[in-house]
């Protein structure tokens, strides 16, 4: 039971930071960025490159993550200047297509540099701790803790700084905030920086929890979208909640014996579990259901 909670939280942490970044960009720029998760991939690899300079030292990974966040944030601003800023008047679909062109370019650049194989962060072998009957590695603890710390920092940024207030205003109404003297272009650049920075950090978390390979971002793209949309586009807290919901749904969905439920539909079986191969499908199904039934998300999102 505790193990389910632990596994769910780990999965949620893999998704949360990526989802928060995505929800911000989706809200302010008004299109779903298919390149977003690739900033995560890039971040994970940059952190790997830095950490490999001092293997077996945990602090190297921290330094690597920091570098990754900054570089990824700058890359995000660069992408905006080169591509998306020229498409401010274009329809969301055009922006979306440009973003998946960018995503392909980024993913395969990573693959060109580092090759198609999987890697792991050079950390010493870890012994899982026993917590309340469940197993958790120190790395996993760090992942969950780091995610929480980031969310807290982000919350403070959004609510207690002028920058944060300006960001929320821009998201609400770009023209209005431009007219009232807040420089929208500056805010947009900030959103790209933070959004891609979060993505990079999310990528590092994902790499720590699973593995690092060029397809890692792409493979997690739909669950990240699901988390962001579940929580309501533009609602960063919602994105975290969405990530938790998905984390729990995936883990619990696999552990539940569905046989009694199907008994009512006339299927008799001793036990019936969802095969692990379908783990991702759980997120996909939730994503489809949410978009069909309540696309504005479960939590209060901004009216668009």
């Amino acid at each position: 039971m505790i193990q389910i909670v632990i596994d769910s939280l780990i999965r949620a942490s893999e998704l949360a930071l990526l989802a928060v970044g995505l929800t911000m960009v989706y809200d302010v720029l008004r299109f779903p960025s298919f390149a977003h998760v690739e900033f995560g991939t890039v971040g994970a690899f940059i952190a790997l490159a830095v950490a490999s300079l001092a293997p077996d030292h945990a602090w190297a990974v921290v330094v690597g993550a920091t570098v990754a966040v900054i570089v990824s944030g700058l890359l995000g601003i660069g992408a905006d200047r080169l591509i998306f800023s020229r498409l401010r008047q274009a329809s969301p679909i055009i922006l979306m297509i440009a973003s998946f062109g960018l995503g392909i370019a980024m993913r395969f650049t990573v693959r060109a540099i580092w090759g198609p194989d999987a890697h792991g962060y050079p950390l010493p072998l870890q012994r899982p701790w026993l917590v309340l009957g469940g197993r958790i590695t120190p790395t996993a603890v760090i992942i969950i803790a780091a995610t929480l710390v980031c969310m807290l920092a982000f919350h403070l940024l959004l609510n207690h700084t002028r920058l944060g207030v300006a960001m929320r205003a821009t998201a609400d109404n770009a023209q209005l905030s431009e007219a009232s003297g807040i420089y929208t272009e500056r805010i947009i650049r900030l959103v790209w920086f933070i959004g891609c920075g979060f993505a990079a950090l999310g990528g590092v978390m994902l790499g720590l929890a699973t593995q690092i390979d060029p397809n890692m971002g792409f493979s997690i793209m739909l669950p990240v979208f699901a988390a962001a949309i579940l929580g309501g586009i533009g609602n960063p807290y919602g994105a975290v909640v969405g990530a938790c919901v998905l984390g729990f749904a995936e883990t619990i969905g696999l552990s539940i014996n569905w046989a009694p439920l199907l008994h009512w539909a006339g299927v008799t079986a001793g036990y019936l579990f969802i095969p692990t191969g379908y783990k991702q499908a759980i997120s996909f199904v939730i994503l489809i259901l949410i978009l069909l039934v309540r696309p504005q998300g479960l939590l209060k999102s901004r009216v668009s």
Partner: protein
Amino acid sequence: MIAFLVYLFTIIGIYGLMSLSLSLQYGTTGLVNLGEVGFFMVGAYVSAIMVMLGGLPIGVGLLGAIAAGAVFGVLMALPIGDLRQDYWAIVTLAAAEIARLIFLNTNLGSPYVGASYGVAGIPAPWQQHFSTAAYGYVYLGLVAVCVACAYALVRWVGRTPYGRLLKAIRESDEVALALGKDVRRARIWAMALGGGIAGLAGGLFAHFNGFIGPDYFMPLETFLVWAMVILGGSGNHLGALVGTAVIEAIYNSTRFLDISQAHASLVASLRMVLIGVLIILVILYLPRGLVPEGRRRYGGSRAAQR
């Protein structure tokens, strides 16, 4: 070299069918289908299953592929009929991925067939009558005929009042609704048509390649087809075929160069980077694509009446 060109043009033809399918869905009707590979996959598997497990002739298998693609299109379109474009995009992407996971996890008949093993040994039609060299031309001919038919079909649709309705829906529903058109039904039919054409592509691919597996049907395939349609010019079916030829040429271009094994992966990656950059450049600088959309002119008809 000739054999390679025959192979290349066959692949261009098969992907060209998918481009035509997407051109009809997105170019004509404005449906942002990011699950295009789903039709391809369903067509491939259904044809392979019908032929190998059902013992049916390949022609019937291909018809089954068309039907399967069309049905998948209807199933996708039914629940999401009025969804806005970006949500439609995400839902179709998810739907295709779910379908792929189902195929990945389901054995077909025997324990080593289907699922992650894929389906091997898919027969090709009339193969026994020809030498290997000549057979390449035969299959190319088959694909070419299919492409010609599909092209004629989508061009014809564009000239009917139904096609006009699809173009009207492309930008927004409201005017069409206010003029009494059943917009949902029109969309569903567009998905059925597009799905059928792409399903045929899948069936042709299965019998051409002899082997299919879930790895052949990743979302990347959909993005490649999108690159083809965007490059060629959405709204123009001929442009879709031109875009297909260009992208496939790039994709297969480096087979000419003598590359050592070590560099093969690097070159493969760089090809894809080029395609990604190409998409961005087209969006920024050539938004209408290589071949712009033509328009139907009626001025002449007035002159004729006078």
